[in-house]
């Protein structure tokens, strides 16, 4: 019968202990917790290598009071010593010098029973008198229990019962198993060795020994390994695709100004998306608008009248104070326009993939903090066909074979397009929004070539890839789930 590695090690330890040992001795020998001894030994018993005898043993422990008496002596021991020191009699009220209040009555009871003490009434008060020296057997028992070397003895039973009654000692049932090697089965053990040691190798003894085969189908202990977060790994995979397509990664700040988040993107200041319940305005900070006066002026005029872009504009009074307000960025396109502001020569290809924040009802499909991907390609001669081409290629790289498009609306792009990809089980999934930046966006940034922009709610794709149904599980705080997450 073959053995697992831990079973073989167990038998080796048992042999070294002389073929018979209790569980605690084996645990010490093997350096494993006592709780692990039982499962291994019962497997070995099933295979017929060992016999297990189980018995309950009473174990005794000192209470706090018992520990006190073990170090200071039993109350009666202390009292007798005191009486001897004082010449055989002591006023009752001086007892507190050697006894605690709660010990007095037990000691006097003992004194009466054994005839060791008597109490006499005197004018100055009661006096306690030593009648005869009586031997006291309690102290050695306490010391033995304290040193863990006590084993019950028939003669001492009444004494132990006293100590239990007086609350100096407690007892607990302790389950102990004794494991014995079954005679005969150790025959092959003498020639077969469980563990190959470095001693075997160095001494050349490995040539003489036989290494016993293991039960290779037995389950090993579970390892707690370190591993990366599956959601972040998916994002890394997406980034790798984008690098391979020639995109440069950019990142901005969580806290943006409305200027960059909305105004540069030609979102009118009275646009419903700018209302307080559709983006997170923040307090305690002020954020520099971080734009040239020329850009600010161009944005103002493009909003008010279209500026020199050929647009009619939104026809209202643009307010710098609104533009200055800090907020948590609500989309990643803000990074793309910031990138354009500092890269005015074609070609440009950039993306950013990070967190955005939007107020919403939190449920299995909506979280107020989520990741978004935004990419741009700008060059002379870029047109809508290229926009469709990049969306098609990117979704193909993500594993979606078919894509379809429809016209849509984004305030900062025209034409605007939404794309759907086909999933073998879930059908058509809307996940990409795209378009060509409006002249009202590119004009103020002084970009004189067309730029296509596209964004993905990457969390939706991550959920599909990771096979989860609740968006909050992307940031799961379930450690056992993370430990057990398989391949995806």
């Amino acid at each position, binding site marked *: 019968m073959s053995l697992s590695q831990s079973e073989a090690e167990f038998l080796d330890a048992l042999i070294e202990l002389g073929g018979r040992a209790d569980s605690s001795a084996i645990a010490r020998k093997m350096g494993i917790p006592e709780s692990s001894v039982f499962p291994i030994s019962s497997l070995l018993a099933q295979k017929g290598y060992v016999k297990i005898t189980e018995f309950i043993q009473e174990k005794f422990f000192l209470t706090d009071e018992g520990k006190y008496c073990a170090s200071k002596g039993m109350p009666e021991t202390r009292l007798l010593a005191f009486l001897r020191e004082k010449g055989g009699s002591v006023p009752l009220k001086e007892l507190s010098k050697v006894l605690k209040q709660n010990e007095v009555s037990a000691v006097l009871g003992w004194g009466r029973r054994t005839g060791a003490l008597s109490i006499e009434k005197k004018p100055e008060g009661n006096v306690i008198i030593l009648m005869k020296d009586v031997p006291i057997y309690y102290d050695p028992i306490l010391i033995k229990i304290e040193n863990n070397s006590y084993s019950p003895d028939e003669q001492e039973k009444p004494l132990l019962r006293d100590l239990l009654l007086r609350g100096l000692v407690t007892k607990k049932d302790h389950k102990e198993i004794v494991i014995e090697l079954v005679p005969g089965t150790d025959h092959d053990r003498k020639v077969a060795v469980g563990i190959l040691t470095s001693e075997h190798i160095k001494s050349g003894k490995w040539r003489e020994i036989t290494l016993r085969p293991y039960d290779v189908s037995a389950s090993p202990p579970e390892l707690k390994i*370190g591993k990366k977060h599956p959601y972040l790994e998916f994002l890394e995979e997406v980034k790798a695709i984008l690098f391979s397509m020639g995109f440069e990664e950019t990142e901005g700040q*969580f*806290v943006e100004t409305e200027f960059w988040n909305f105004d540069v993107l030609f979102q009118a200041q009275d646009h419903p998306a700018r209302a307080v319940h559709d983006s997170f305005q923040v307090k305690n900070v002020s954020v520099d608008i971080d734009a040239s006066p020329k850009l600010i002026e161009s944005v103002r005029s493009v909003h008010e009248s279209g500026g020199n872009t050929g647009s009619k504009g939104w026809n209202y009074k643009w307010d710098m104070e609104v533009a200055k307000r800090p907020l948590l960025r609500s989309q990643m396109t803000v990074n793309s326009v910031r990138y354009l502001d500092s890269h005015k020569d074609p070609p440009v290809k950039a993306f950013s993939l990070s967190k955005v924040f939007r107020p919403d009802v939190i449920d299995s499909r909506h979280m107020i903090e989520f990741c978004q991907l935004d990419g741009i390609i700008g060059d002379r001669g870029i047109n*809508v*066909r290229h926009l469709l081409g990049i969306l098609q290629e990117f979704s193909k790289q993500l594993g979606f074979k078919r894509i379809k498009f*429809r016209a849509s*609306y984004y305030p900062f792009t025209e034409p605007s397009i939404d794309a759907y990809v086909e999933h073998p089980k879930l059908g058509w999934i809307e996940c990409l929004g795209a378009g060509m930046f409006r002249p009202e966006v590119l004009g103020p940034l002084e970009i004189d070539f067309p730029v296509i922009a596209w964004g993905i709610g990457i969390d939706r794709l991550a959920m599909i890839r990771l096979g989860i149904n609740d968006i909050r599980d992307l940031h799961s705080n379930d450690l056992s789930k993370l430990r057990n997450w398989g391949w995806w």
Partner: protein
Amino acid sequence: MSLIGKDLSVSELEDLLTAVKCELETSNEEVVVEVTSDRPDLFSAEGVSRAIRNYLGIGSLYSFGKYPALPIDLIVSESVSSIRPLIVSAAVRGVSLNNEALRQLMQLQEKLHNTYGSNRRKASIGVYDLDKILPPIVYEARPPEEIRFTPLEHTAELDGREILELTPKGKEYGNIISKSQNYPVLIDSRGKVLSMPPIINSEDTKVSETTTNLFIDVTGLEMRPISICLNIMITSALERGGSLQYVDVRYKDRRLRTPIFAEHFQEVSLSKAREVLGLDLSISDITSLLKRMGYWTETIGDEVVRAKIPPYRVDILHEVDLIEDIMMAYGLNRVQPTFPRVHTIGKPLTGSRLRARIRDLMIGMGFVEVTTYVLSNCEMMVNKPQLPKRPFVEVVKPVSSEYTVLRDRLLPKLLDFMSANIHVEYPQKIFEYGSVVVIENGTPKMSNHLGVVASGDRVGFEEIQAVAFSLFKNLSGNVELTKASSTLFIDGRIASICVNGTEIGILGEVHPQVLVNFALSNPAVAMEIDFSKLVYLESLFRG
């Protein structure tokens, strides 16, 4: 279907809807259509049908009848100027309304309120049976106790204040006017109250299936939203037959004839359309495609097409808006995708290599990576970890008390993570590499931190010390630990981490009180490092 003038199957309808920028949501007895917010003209069945009719070439391009009578007078009193100063208005004569038409009209009104009207604050629409009104009409403000009428769907007269306090609409929208001493009202020449904008109309002037003459007003704060709302309401109502009667709105110093259906034109150049769409279009392609989208056009020379913008198309600001319409008429799924040949070098963010290296090393040391939300709350960031009170980037209107501030460090988030996992087998070792936002001189500053926590029966200071030393040894940095203090940690078991002479973090044994605050019963050691100060290490790797 009667509005379209042709029977269509569901799949035909679906394709047509997609072509005119609508999305079919469900189609049982009722067809539910999703529309983008730039196209209020598609907010009702009338508008969607008009778009489909144009696309199919049924009927003629947009036109409407004008009622052969003088405009209705509407006098604006100066008393509204500080409350709700602007009003536009129009009437439709000879309309035929059935139950469905009424429903569409009310639905359109509500959608416009919710979008362009910013929940009635910026624009609110009133619709009346014109036959129950005796013009001229006056728009003025009155003290609430001097306003008395029976509000819509009510049976008794109420005064202005009672309307705000007792009616459902009054409770919902009352705060728009409740701060003013006087409330705006529309009254007719007999002194009958027609409505109290933006709250409610009178029961008297209610529109029903027998109504043939409609009066519509839009009040608000700015001209653009109220004009859009009126144009959309009127053009939709006119789809049910009838003709338009203008209203002369008389302010103290000027007269405005509404609706403002100004003739407005947008030009589109052939070369620009070809450039944007990448399609080989001719000038006649463009005129016929624009016609399908409902535009009357004329060509100017052989390069430019001039389109007349119908009054309901409030989204046309620029020639690119017409180019999108050309694309839609052409059929987006007929456009051949082409991969752009723009050659550039892909490049990760500065700091990516350092981040990748750190994550690998932490994994190598047996730590499980976690990712927690950037949004947090003061209880978690200040009280539980016993950290000093400090300002955070704080959300003005949080949607949940759990998410009110941006985290400025990671350890409280990681301890919170652990407190959600007290029943999972120990020892537990976790880390996060993520962004935090600290306030420096009143300005938010984002940086990348590494947070590490290990917890179990016997973890101690040396363990986290060893992690720090191994980490920096493998990042070619020289780490030095110096005495420090923080109430998050046990006194005497906390140290500052200095690398190459810069102080960048702390490590130590977590204070038992903090463990208790997070409901943890195993000892824990922790470390937090600000790696934005060490991005220069990246250059060492490239060496």
